């Protein structure tokens, strides 16, 4: 059995089905990559797993415990961490205060600084003044200090320079290698496929591809087809 097992999830937004019976899994020590164009339902899927978006059907099981009806806070305390898109730092708090919000009073922010040394230099600065890349590092580090078992990251690379993205990707790989299960939602496929183990491609709320990351990375035409579609005008489904 997988560490995180999401099966047949249905999530509606304002009465519209955005996630339509989707199943994904995440294993300890592995990275599951969720790909798909904007509007495919990736974010809503993560929100359903984290408990922010109400789930209409399906199950969310973490390490054998059914969390489908649990509150977002209970899921977080059970070891399910979601990093929302948009780099949700507490802008008026300093970098270190952001870290202290989540960490145990006894353990220091050292683990976070070890992963992203640049944060140490910015520790006294309001998080709102950090660069986009630093903010993304901060939210990852912040989530990390709560020692989650499954880390879900939504659109980590949106709006960031490629060099920063590749740095973040390496950090995420390191977390997985240390035993964490990672569920990575990305619109930009190549870098995510390069570090990921298992890949899912979503389109209009359903999984249209499931398989190894390496297989998909070797077949860019297939990916292009899955993403942008190349059907003739008027094709039905």
């Amino acid at each position, binding site marked *: 059995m997988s560490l995180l097992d999401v099966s047949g999830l249905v999530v509606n*937004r*304002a*009465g*519209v*089905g*955005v996630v339509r019976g989707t199943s994904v899994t995440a294993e300890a020590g592995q990275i599951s990559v969720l790909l798909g*164009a*904007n*509007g*495919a339902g990736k974010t809503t899927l993560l929100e359903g797993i984290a408990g922010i978006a109400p789930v209409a059907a399906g199950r969310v099981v973490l390490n054998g415990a059914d969390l489908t009806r649990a509150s977002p806070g209970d899921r977080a305390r059970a070891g399910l961490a979601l990093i929302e*898109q948009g780099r949700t730092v507490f802008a008026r708090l300093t970098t270190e205060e952001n870290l202290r919000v989540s960490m145990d009073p006894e353990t220091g922010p050292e683990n976070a600084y070890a992963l992203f040394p640049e944060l140490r230099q910015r520790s006294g600065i309001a998080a709102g003044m950090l660069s*986009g890349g630093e903010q993304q590092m901060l939210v990852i580090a912040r989530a990390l200090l709560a020692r989650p078992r499954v880390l879900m990251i939504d*659109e980590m*690379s*949106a*709006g960031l320079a490629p060099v920063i993205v590749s740095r973040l990707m390496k950090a995420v790989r390191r977390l997985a290698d240390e035993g964490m299960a990672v569920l990575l939602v*990305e*619109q*930009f*496929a*190549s*870098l*995510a*496929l*390069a570090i990921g183990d298992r890949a899912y491609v979503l*389109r*209009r709320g359903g999984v249209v591809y499931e398989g190894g990351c*390496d297989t998909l*990375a*070797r077949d*860019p035409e297939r*990916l*292009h087809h899955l*993403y*942008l*579609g*190349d*059907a003739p*005008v*008027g*094709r*039905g*489904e």
Partner: protein
Amino acid sequence: MKHASFGSSLAIVLSVAAIGGLSLTLLSSYWIFLLTAVFVVGIALQSLGIVAGRTGMISLCQMSFAGVGAWTTGYLNVAGFPGGLPVWILIGGLAAVPVGVAIGLPALRLRGINLAIVTLGFAAAFDTVLATITFPGQTSFNQVARPALFDSDEGYFLFVLVVYAVIAVALEVVSRTRLGAAWLAVRHSERAAAAVGVSVPGAKLSAFAISAFIAGISGGLLAGYLGTLVSDNFSMMQSLALFAVATMTGAHYVHGSIAGGVLIALFPELMRRLNLPQDLGAVVFALGAVQALSTGESMAEALMRLFRRLFPRAVEAPPLLDEASLPKPAVAETSASALDVSSLTVRYGSVIALDKVDITIPQRTVVGLVGPNGAGKSTLVDAVAGFLPTYEGSARLAGAPLDGLSPRRRARRGLRRTWQTTRIAPELDVGQYVQLASGGVSAHELDALLAWLECPAASTPIAFVDAGTRRLLDIAGAIAARPQVLLLDEPAAGQSYAEAVKLGQRIAEIPSLFGSAVLLIEHDMDIVRQACSTVTVLDFGRVIASGPPQEVLDLPAVRKAYMGVDGEAEAAA
């Protein structure tokens, strides 16, 4: 529409007449006297319903407005002003209008919270002022004279009933006009209201003015009812209780206002007969209001829901498509391009969301706007539609500059937009919304348009329409206005592939059928290929490519922006 308005007005008149007839034949003078209070309070509740229920603002000083009307009536009585009570009441209502407008002014552009504070402040201030100046005739026991014809308690009951019915019918008629729809639109979303050309300050101020007028009338009626008044009749506590009851029963509905009147006027009597403390009423009102706020449904609304469940109204079949009746293009082609955006730059602090973006939409074409998350697509729509405080660069609609104009002015000049999340007021019906958004089309045109987009019939309440279809209504409203330019922000999001393809076909036909040019933001490239003649790609706030869809979407730079896939990455993988 006219028929519906006439029908409900008739229903109001008939039920009020029935209540009046039954009461006068069956009830003793004592109960008639009590019932009169029900309708006086009912009028005050209706006045509060305009501001709170319809326009969604918190007013905690409604009885102060009533106090202004009552004071004026008392003053005219003491002064012996000609015309008698009906004229005094009318003048009293008018006297409350400037007060209402003045209270509404400081909250026009700020959050509703401030209105709650300013109205409570006014209620407190009015309390002190009234306690000091006292009512005209209060110390000399100078009774407010009732009209000779209605001098008895039964007579005055009839008088109040007639005034109640006139106001209820008038409000019913107003609620079906553009003004009534505008109030609901403002309550639901100020931005969306402005985007369909509604003046938000105008809607708020008119609501306050009319509300104060009606409250003033109820105060005048109370003066005639009680003869002499004391400041306690209009104290802050009365205003607060009125607010709680209005929230609990739903004062912007006729039956809600009567139910509220019954609660306020008869509850103390009931408590007295049960040997319970009379002020228990306020506790019930408070709990009832909290309950209504937590469920989002007042008593009147719950009743209507129950009624609909017991007697389901036959859902009118969607109209059949009659292409000949579709609204005709109303755009004059005065320049080659419908919209010219040049060097548009938007900054949020140090972040540049849009960087010198140029986009031209030729007349009668569909241009696609694509790009990854955070590329600046919605920011562009917000800027062009006038929803950003500032931007650099310029936007011109058919050659005329738009910069500096409010969203409402831009909408009126022929620039319409839709929203990623629909913001249509659920209290409207389909036809009312499209009429509000379009500024008026004929019934035939309306039906044809609804059929063309496969929307439900015009009489369907929005509350019964699912979110996906509401987005279609958004588009229908915008099309019906036949604007120069239509900005569609992800119209197909959340729809199945088949539905999205169908919508894509319709969007492609908009320019030829309705004369509007379209800017389409869409993520499904099949839809983009299908609907657009050219496509512009944004990445990091810059235009990275522009041209025919087939060519542009295969460009390596576009693939890279969209998927992060390029030659290098493939080699690395």
